[in-house]
C-alpha cells in the first residue's frame, strides 16, 4: 500500500531532489543571461514561461517515446518487471555516485546556448538542452515512463518530475539575496543521493516481484 503511494510521488521527489543539482550546474549560466540587460518583470516572466513550456513539451515527447519503447520492448509482463528493476538499480547507483562524487559535472551542458545570436530562441534552446541533459535522474524517469502501463500514467510521471525539478528554478531571480547558498546546495546534493536510494528499493522490489512471477 505504502509503496503504491510512494511510486505515485517518486517522480516528483526525484525531480525535486535532483532539481537542486540541475540548478547548481545550470542555473548560474542561464539566469544571469535571462535577466541581463534591460530586463523588466514582463520580459523575465515571458522568458521563464517559454523556458518552462519548452521543458514541459520536451518531457511530454520523452514520455510518449519512452512509453512506446516500453510497450514494444517489454511485452512480456515478467520482462516488464525485471528489466526496469535492473535499470532502476543501475541508474539509482549512478545517481548516488553522482551526488557523492567530487568529480561531478560542474559545467552546464547548455552553456553554449547563451552564445547564440538570437535572443528569442535562447529560452527555447535552454529549455530543450536542460530537459535532455544526460543525467541519471533523466534515465530513471525514462525507465519509469517505459514501465508504465498506460500513456496517461507515463505523462503523469513526467509531469510530476517536471514540477519537482522546476520548483528550484522559481526563486532564481532572488538568488543573489539567498544566504547560505553553499549549505542549500550541499543539502540538495545529499537529497539527490537519498532519491537514488528510494529508486534502488523500487528497483529491488520490482526485480523481486518479477522473479517471483517468473
Amino acid at each position, binding site marked *: 500500500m*505504502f509503496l503504491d503511494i*510512494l511510486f505515485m*510521488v517518486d517522480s516528483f*521527489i526525484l525531480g525535486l531532489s535532483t532539481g537542486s543539482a540541475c540548478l547548481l550546474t545550470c542555473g548560474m549560466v542561464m539566469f544571469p543571461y535571462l535577466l541581463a540587460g534591460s530586463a523588466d518583470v514582463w520580459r523575465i516572466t515571458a522568458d521563464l514561461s517559454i523556458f518552462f513550456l519548452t521543458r514541459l513539451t520536451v518531457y511530454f515527447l520523452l514520455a510518449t517515446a519512452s512509453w512506446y519503447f516500453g510497450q514494444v520492448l517489454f511485452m512480456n509482463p515478467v520482462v516488464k518487471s525485471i528489466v526496469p528493476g535492473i535499470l532502476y538499480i543501475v541508474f539509482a547507483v549512478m545517481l548516488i555516485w553522482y551526488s557523492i562524487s567530487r568529480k561531478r559535472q560542474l559545467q552546464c551542458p547548455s552553456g553554449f546556448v547563451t552564445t547564440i545570436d538570437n535572443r528569442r530562441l535562447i529560452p527555447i534552446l535552454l529549455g530543450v538542452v536542460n530537459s535532455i541533459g544526460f543525467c541519471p535522474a533523466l534515465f530513471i524517469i525514462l525507465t519509469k515512463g517505459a514501465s508504465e502501463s498506460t500513456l496517461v500514467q507515463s505523462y503523469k510521471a513526467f509531469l510530476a518530475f517536471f514540477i519537482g525539478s522546476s520548483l528550484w528554478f522559481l526563486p532564481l531571480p532572488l538568488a543573489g539575496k539567498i544566504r547560505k547558498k553553499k549549505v542549500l546546495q550541499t543539502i540538495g546534493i*545529499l*537529497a539527490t543521493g537519498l532519491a537514488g536510494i528510494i529508486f534502488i528499493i523500487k528497483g529491488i522490489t520490482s526485480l523481486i516481484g518479477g522473479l517471483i512471477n517468473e
Partner: protein
Amino acid sequence: MNNNLVSTSMEKSFGKSLLYTLPMFLITFIFISGGKVDFSNLPAALAIVVTFLFMNILYFMMHYTGKTDKFRVILFIIFALSLSFTLIKNMMEMRHSMSFSQADLLECKIPFCHLVIPMMIIPAAFTKSIIFPGSVIGGFADISSMIILWLVATLVLGRGFCAWGCFYGGWDDGFSRFRKKSVIKKISESWRWMPFAVLFMVALTAAMTLGPTYCDWICPFKAVTEFEQISSVESVAKAVVFISLFLSLVVVLPVLTKKRTQCSFLCPMGAVNSLSNKITPFVVKIDKKACSECFKCVQVCPLFALTKEDVKNGKASVFCSKCGKCVDVCSKNAIHFGIKGVPAGTMKNFSRNLFLFVSFLFISVFSAGSIINAVQSIFKLLF
C-alpha cells in the same frame, strides 16, 4: 602552575558539591517517588531507591570532579538500554511479540516517538490529522505528552535534547566509546548536512503519502524497539533496511569513527534540534584568549559540531549537543558552557551550574520511569 589552577576551576569541594546536589536530591525524590516510597512492594521500592541514589551520585560527581560528559554518558546509555528493555517488555506483555500487526495499527496502539514530529507538521497543517497510529492522550507514550516534553526540552536545551533527552542517542554514544582510537579519521564536513537532506525527504514524502515515512522505512531503532510483522516482500525489505542501518550507523561506524554517526548523518530530529539551537539560552562558548588551539575539542566532538574554523571564530556550530565532551577535554578551560548574551570567558561556573541543573533534571525525570522498570525487572529476576 597557572594552567593547573585553571584546569581544575570547575571542581568543587565535597561540601560545596553536596550543597549543589541538595536541590536535585529533593526535586528528583518528589518526581521519582511521588513524595513517599511504598516498601510493601520491595522490588519496586528498592528499584526506586537505587535509581534515585544512582542519579544523585552522578550529579554530585559532576560537581565534585568538574567533569560533565564522563558522568552524563553513564546515565544516557543506561536510559537508552532501559527504554528499549521497557518497551520490548511492554510489547511482549501486551502482544507477545516485538512486531505489531495491522490490527494494532488500526487500533492506534503504537507508542509515540519524538522522531515522528518533523513528519507530522505539514500533514497536520493541511489535513488537521495526525499521521501516526498512536494514542493522542493517555496510554503508554501517548502523542500529546511526548510532544509537550520534546517541545519544552528543545526550547530550553536546543540540540542539547540529543545529549540529555533522546532515548535512542545512548546507543551510538555508547558504541562510539568502545575503542580508544578511531580507525576512520577523515570524514568530509559536508556529511554534517545529511540530517537536513533526510528531514527534507521525509517531510516531503510524509506530506505526500500522509504516512510517517521515516518510521515506516528508515528508523534504525526499529531493530531494538518494535517493527512491522513480517508478512510480505515489503515488510522483509523494511526489516532489512532497519537492521542494516542499525548495524552500520549505530554499531559499526560509531566504533570505527568514535562519533555518533546515526545522530550526525541520519536523524531528522537532529536537524530540527540544530535549528532550535538558534533560540535556546544555553550555548557552548570558546574563550579565544584562553584557547591554545590544540584542537582536542574538534577531535573529540561526537557530532562534528566543532571545526578548526569554529574554534578560531570562538563559537560552536549549530550542531552542538552540549554533551560536554569538549569541555571535559580542554586543559585550558577555554571552552565552556555559557549563556547567550554573556561574553565568552565570563560567568563560567554560574553558566555550567545552571545548565547542569536544567539538563540533568530533565534527563533524570524523563529517564526515571524506564530505569526503575528495568532495575525492578532485574531484581525480580535475581531474587
